[in-house]
């Protein structure tokens, strides 16, 4: 991966070329980060300064008023808790079913592998909005409407393809001879999976867990459709509602948005290398 880039990078480029390149990179990084930086700035100025003008916003002394407002709101804290529970449960369920399924696809031979993989992949292209009405009726019938399950169940279905797809790519990279050796020593397929593959695949599984968690954390449509009680809202529903709760208190709205993105930004910064390898695994096959 890096070697191809290095050979091309090594071909002579003038200093002006290099300067332009870094100017371009700086611009790119700035544009990507700008909304987060600016909204963070908006979250640490007083209401009066914020309403004066964007220039005043930029130079005003920092205050923590807005963070006191949002953390003083029990619904906001509850929404954070709800999001953690829903995304955490979705991740665990997806990894359980996903790793079993992915192992079979990556390692065992069977006839209908290709149609099954196509079926699973089809879900990631599936417009989720097409099934909200039937699911609403069914969830009401079985009594899970307006509960965590009304989010966890559909989130699991739509995150599973991602989970399986990435895990298959990771499982395929593991050396096959180790399992063969385990089987020669008398281990069953299940034992080979549990004792050999699972520990070896731990880094890949961990990466998949991060991606699944982010996916579930960001889900909005199902939560907005199936949840009516404010106390059950995840952050993705609670934060946009701040516009009606706090109306012109833009500082509080900014603070809410910043608090929700901080865990994701930290995850991304720590695990960026793994995330990139997970995302591009399977998507690009040489």
């Amino acid at each position, binding site marked *: 991966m890096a070697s191809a880039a290095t050979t091309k990078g090594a071909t002579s480029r003038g200093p002006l070329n290099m300067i332009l390149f870094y100017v*371009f990179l700086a611009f790119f990084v700035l544009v990507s980060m700008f909304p987060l930086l600016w909204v963070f700035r908006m979250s640490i100025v007083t209401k009066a300064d914020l309403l004066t003008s964007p220039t005043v916003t930029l130079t005003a002394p920092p205050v923590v008023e807005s963070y006191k407002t949002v953390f003083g709101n029990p619904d906001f804290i509850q929404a954070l808790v709800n999001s953690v529970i829903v995304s955490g449960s979705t991740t665990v369920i997806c990894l359980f079913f996903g790793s079993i399924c992915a192992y079979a696809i990556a390692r065992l031979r069977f006839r209908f592998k290709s149609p099954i993989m196509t079926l699973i992949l089809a879900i990631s292209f599936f417009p989720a909005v097409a099934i*909200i009405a039937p699911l609403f009726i069914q969830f009401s019938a079985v009594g899970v409407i307006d509960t965590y399950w009304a989010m966890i169940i559909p989130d699991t279905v739509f995150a599973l393809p991602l989970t399986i797809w990435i895990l298959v790519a990771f499982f395929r990279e593991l050396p096959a001879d180790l399992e063969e050796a385990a089987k020669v020593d008398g281990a069953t397929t299940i034992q080979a999976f549990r004792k050999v593959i699972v520990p070896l695949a731990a880094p890949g599984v961990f990466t998949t867990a991060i991606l699944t968690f982010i996916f579930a954390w960001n889900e909005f449509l199902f939560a907005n459709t199936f949840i009516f009680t404010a106390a059950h809202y995840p952050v993705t529903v609670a934060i946009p509602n701040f516009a009606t709760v706090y109306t012109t208190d833009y500082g509080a709205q900014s603070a809410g948005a910043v608090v929700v993105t901080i865990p994701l930004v930290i995850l991304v910064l720590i695990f960026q290398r793994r995330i990139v390898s997970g995302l591009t695994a399977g998507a*690009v096959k040489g």
Partner: protein
Amino acid sequence: MTSATSEKKRRGGWFREEFGNPERRLAYYMVLPAVLIIVIIAFFPIAYSVVLSVTDSTITGMGSFVGVENYVEMFKNPDFLEGLKNTVIFTVGSVALEFVIGLGVALAVNRAFRGRGLVRAAVLVPWAFPTVISAVMWRLMFQDPIGIINETANALGIISQPILSDATLLLIACILVDVWKTMPFMALLLLAGLQTIPGEVYEAARVDGANVMQRFFRITLPLLKGTILVAVLFRTLDAYRVYDLFWVLSSEQLESLSTFVFKSVRISQLLFAQGNAAAVFIFVTAFIIALIFIRIFGMQTGTEE
């Protein structure tokens, strides 16, 4: 897929062969739970949606058969047509911009340089944001009078009215926010594809006297075709079902196909059956888009090594 079916017809004993072999049987047991979950929660409801769309059902009870009446009404509904128009403009506009800019960025950064980590982080941060939260952030920046973008655009004379109260400006804003959020991701996928092209191919072409443009159109694009198709199809279907961004950025004003379905089945329940017709419409058209990519552009969906 087709070869498997024809083979099945030729050899009657495949069932015994598949399930008589313990390893293969185990494989089926292992994939079954995930497949069942997907079929029950996603494919069964689609069939249910189709049924609902040809009846006068409400959210509380099954109605009687009315044929295609809901579809006819839907195509006469100005809200639906507005949603369709906005969705098509949004999809074409955002995917085209994301592809062109993303490819440019991928080509530019396909080399060794200092600060790769920083650039990678800058790529991933917008991608990892929940769409609704990025919509909230941009809405705050577009907000009149406190938003920096609204203020700047006003000062430069680009806009004459607040961005958030004009339908055309809102649609443009949605496209730009989507480009901001997903173009880096597109660039990342294309970069991974570029890095699988061996450097020697370019060297050989250079020796043969091919110029930059020739190398791009004769080598890069053809070799990158597979990656491009996957990335563009994925983004197209994602943009086509746009809901979060429109809903939050425009404060529920701007209509897309998905917001039309949501409003019909969840908010004004008088349009429940028509909303289901629109849901089926989205599903079928998304399916057609995917087929076009696979059949006409010859995209590879096979997962065999």
